């Protein structure tokens, strides 16, 4: 016989003002199985919890119903309270009479009536609750970091620091990411390479870190604590273990007309290449699209000059499989493609560049050796116009609805650096708003305006037209002065919006993590769990989760590392006990459940059964791995024989709720 306790919370006046809580407690006390029914001011308070705990002990309760706020708020609180009083925590049910009753209804009589019905449904359900025990599953003490930019590097270093093995998978030939392409960093104006490259070296030398450069994730199986990941090491046609990175091959390579990705295509590289001097790993890679040997079978110069014998034109993609306990996603961002922005003449005029291109133009290792020259005629620009929010904060389908966050600051940085180095150059910045929250950020921007006399103009650029005399006509509006401007600029720099890397979405599918409509990974909770994905064991680092500057990225990278370490230090993890289970006597082995399981949690086993007709038969039956199952319940409906059921949300429990509500 059930002995159920009902506890009705006033939530101050939040509930009690609209619902007659006494009447609710009184009515529910008459429900079958209910032996105690009380109300209290704040059930979630310590004394409220004690009320529940004492009742459990005093009345030897077999089930508890709390009529209070949403279970999403305090279900755990009351489960813990029950557990501490010796009642299995899964024998607690919450009737949501605040969010779904008192807060939305005004009439006391009808709100009370509804609260009673919701309470009855919870009582009906708790009658059928079974004590559940969370299972355990071992944790593989190795982490995978996907992406080798500053986010990935920082996460890997922090995890390695804690003593765990960690692999970085980077799709490019070198780690370093976007930060390696950046010239100076705001607001300190120190050189990005000077702070990044030591970290890259540190990562490569750390005994706990393995870098898989020029590699991609091709498959992810498993679950928190026990992922099995297949990594595709793309053929680079150079034996990594032999190449010393001397660079002789890149010098001798006759094919030198390959657009250099690292310099945003502003200059060329050879077909065999090392992306930049400080690349890690410093290993050459052959670009098979341009290599004469690969395309025509005639050349082979690199192979001849390589004293290490590292060149291997026949190298194949390699697949390696590795187990991990935790996965950190750090796939970063890219500037958006500006093909749709004809008004800025990006595709028509070489002197209209993106901000990232400007970084390379100004960088000492860039195409011009650090001297700012116009890409078209290699002359000094004397008038430069910066356009903000190109594709950011857009209502239309061309751009992105969000603020890319970093553009205001890097534009101030660019403007300042140009004015510093070339005081004869006039700099205009067209902006919608200048957004500079952050430590020393606003001061930095004000220095650009006040100290460096950068012309900040509130307004949007309407049209950029290259003129025949080499100048660029920038037509804009000054919203403050309320006038139309024409500026004959030498260069135009576009602060292109940033977007998640294109590889993120297929990756999210493999990882079964959520993404928002902009393809940014969704965190488990926007405020309280910002570096975890909703999928257990998958963490988020850097701009893959949303636009971020370097300090924020590094902070989040370390936070993600801390979360991953928190998982890896455990020998085993507690699983959600609200998982599916198959009644083997009912299962007919048809495989429907397996087909709809998003986690691959269901396998089939051949098992011997004593059949009802006295025979012994070997039958194929479904078996759920409780550590893998996340408890969605898709299988329970796919199963025609009702063999599959879900703990905590069983068929009979839901039917009992339906019955109670429709009573």
């Amino acid at each position, binding site marked *: 016989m059930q002995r159920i306790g009902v506890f009705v919370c006033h939530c101050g006046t939040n509930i009690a003002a609209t619902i007659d809580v006494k009447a609710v407690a009184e009515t529910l006390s008459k429900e079958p199985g209910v032996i105690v029914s009380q109300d209290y001011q704040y059930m979630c308070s310590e004394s409220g919890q004690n009320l529940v705990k004492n009742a459990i002990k005093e009345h030897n309760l077999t089930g508890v119903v709390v009529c209070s706020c949403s279970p999403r708020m305090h279900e755990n609180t009351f489960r813990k309270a029950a557990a501490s009083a010796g009642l299995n925590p899964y024998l607690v049910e919450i009737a949501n009479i605040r969010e779904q009753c008192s807060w939305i209804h005004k009439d006391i009589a009808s709100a009370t009536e509804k609260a009673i019905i919701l309470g009855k449904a919870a009582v009906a359900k708790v009658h059928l609750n079974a004590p559940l025990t969370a299972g355990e599953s071992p944790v593989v003490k190795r982490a995978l970091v996907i992406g080798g930019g500053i986010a990935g590097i920082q996460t890997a270093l922090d995890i390695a620091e804690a003593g765990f093995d960690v692999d970085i998978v980077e799709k490019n030939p070198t780690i370093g990411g976007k930060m390696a392409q950046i010239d100076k960093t705001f607001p300190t104006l120190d050189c990005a390479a000077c702070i990044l490259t030591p970290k890259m070296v540190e990562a490569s030398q750390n005994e706990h870190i393995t870098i898989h450069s020029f590699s991609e994730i091709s498959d992810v199986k498993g679950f928190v604590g026990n992922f099995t990941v297949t990594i595709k090491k793309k053929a680079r046609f150079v034996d990594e273990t032999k190449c010393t990175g001397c660079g002789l091959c890149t010098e001798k390579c006759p094919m030198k007309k390959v657009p250099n990705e690292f310099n945003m295509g502003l200059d060329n590289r050879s077909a065999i290449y090392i992306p930049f001097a400080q690349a890690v790993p410093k290993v050459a890679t052959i670009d098979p699209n341009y290599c004469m040997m690969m395309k025509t079978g005639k050349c082979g110069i690199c192979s001849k000059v390589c004293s290490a014998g590292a060149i291997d034109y026949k190298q194949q993609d390699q697949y390696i499989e590795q187990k991990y306990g935790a996965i950190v996603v750090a796939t970063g961002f890219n500037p958006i493609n500006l093909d749709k922005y004809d008004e800025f003449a990006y595709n028509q005029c070489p002197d209209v560049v993106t901000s990232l291109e400007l970084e390379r133009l100004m960088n000492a290792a860039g195409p011009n050796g650090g001297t700012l020259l116009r890409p078209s005629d290699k002359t000094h620009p004397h008038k430069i116009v910066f356009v903000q929010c190109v594709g950011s904060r857009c209502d239309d389908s061309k751009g992105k609805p969000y603020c890319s966050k970093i553009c205001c600051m890097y534009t101030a940085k660019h403007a300042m650096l140009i004015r510093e180095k070339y005081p004869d150059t006039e700099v205009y910045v067209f902006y919608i708003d200048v957004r500079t929250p952050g430590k020393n950020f606003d001061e930095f921007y004000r220095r650009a305006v006040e100290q460096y006399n950068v012309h900040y103009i509130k307004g949007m650029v309407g049209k950029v037209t290259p003129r025949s005399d080499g100048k660029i006509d920038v037509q804009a509006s000054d919203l403050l002065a309320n006038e139309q401007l024409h500026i004959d600029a030498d260069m135009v720099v576009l602060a292109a919006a940033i977007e998640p890397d294109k590889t993120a979405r297929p990756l999210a599918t493999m990882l079964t993590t959520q993404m928002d409509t902009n393809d940014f990974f969704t965190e488990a909770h926007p405020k309280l769990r910002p570096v975890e994905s909703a999928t257990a064991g998958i963490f988020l680092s850097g701009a893959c989760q949303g636009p971020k500057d370097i300090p924020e990225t590094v902070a989040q990278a370390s936070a993600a590392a801390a979360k991953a370490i928190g998982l890896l230090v455990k020998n085993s993890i507690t699983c959600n006990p609200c998982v599916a289970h198959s009644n083997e006597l009912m299962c*007919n082995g*048809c495989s*429907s459940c397996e*087909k709809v399981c998003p986690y691959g949690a269901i396998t089939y086993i051949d098992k011997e059964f004593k059949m009802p007709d006295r025979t012994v*038969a070997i039958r194929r039956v479904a078996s759920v791995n409780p550590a893998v199952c996340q408890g969605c319940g898709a299988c329970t409906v796919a199963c025609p024989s*009702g063999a599959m059921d879900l703990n905590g949300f069983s068929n009979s429990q839901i039917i009992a709720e339906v019955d109670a509500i429709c009573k």
Partner: protein
Amino acid sequence: MQEAMINKAKQLLSEGVVNRVIGWKRGEFAYDITPAVFENAEEIEKSFVYDDFTAANVSKYLVKESKKDGKILAFLKPCDTYSFNQLIKEHRIIRENVYIVGIPGGPKLDAEKIKAKGITGILGVKNENYTLKIDTIYGEETMPFYEAVLDKCASCKSKKHVIYDELIGEDGDTLDSNRFDMVEKLENMTAQERYDFWRSQLSKCIRCNACRNVCPACTCEKCVFDNPDSGIENKAPSDSFEENMFHIIRAFHVAGRCTDCGECSRVCPQNIPLHLLNRKFIKDINTFYGEFQAGEDITSLAPLNEFKQNDCEANIIHERGVE
């Protein structure tokens, strides 16, 4: 045809290829044929029959038979092969233990249709040039062959065997059947008319479970309607709701798995057109998710076990046709 089948069965038995044969056994009258397992040549000689009344789909029996020792010879009509394939897909049949001989199918006859003409005391039925000559106690009667054809054969979907070890006779093709005509007719009625139609049909249900027990897609170890733990167990159509519940849920459970073999309607003692429920699902699946024929192969995912990101929304129901 019967002769060729008997010879084939005897040959395979004597060669030791199979140790049993599943087929059909002659009854008391022209039409009361019983599916049967034969173990030797004499039994086959004596009572094996294949004629215009051997309509029963024997593939479901192979769920049990294929788990016994030795190989069994099964004569499968084209429609039966779809059921068989579907059962293989769902791991219900051990394929290696069955030797399939594909045989030409219908159209098969429905004794009920002959009786519905008022013809009674039937002693024998002969098909002469598609006119049935029916010998009765009350004298000879005639009726056109096609008026006595089973509903399931009147809208045959395929003459093609989708699985077999060997064939007797030629294989046919899948057909453009008119099998959705009645579904469409109902769809074009008003909701009230549809409701009235189904009430008049389903209220006849005596819950004998013949439709379920004959259905090759209903092979659960224990049906939810027999299982007190399921919450929907029931033995009788105690209320019009129960009639709806049983038939809706049963059709839903076989949706995407039903090959449209038509056995449910054939065996219904109350002549309820149960196949229309299954065909409604098949038609909807074809319309919403692309043509799908259950049992056509053993690899494709059942429509309810897969999805496309751009599937239509459920509310499409609210937007179309007659309310």
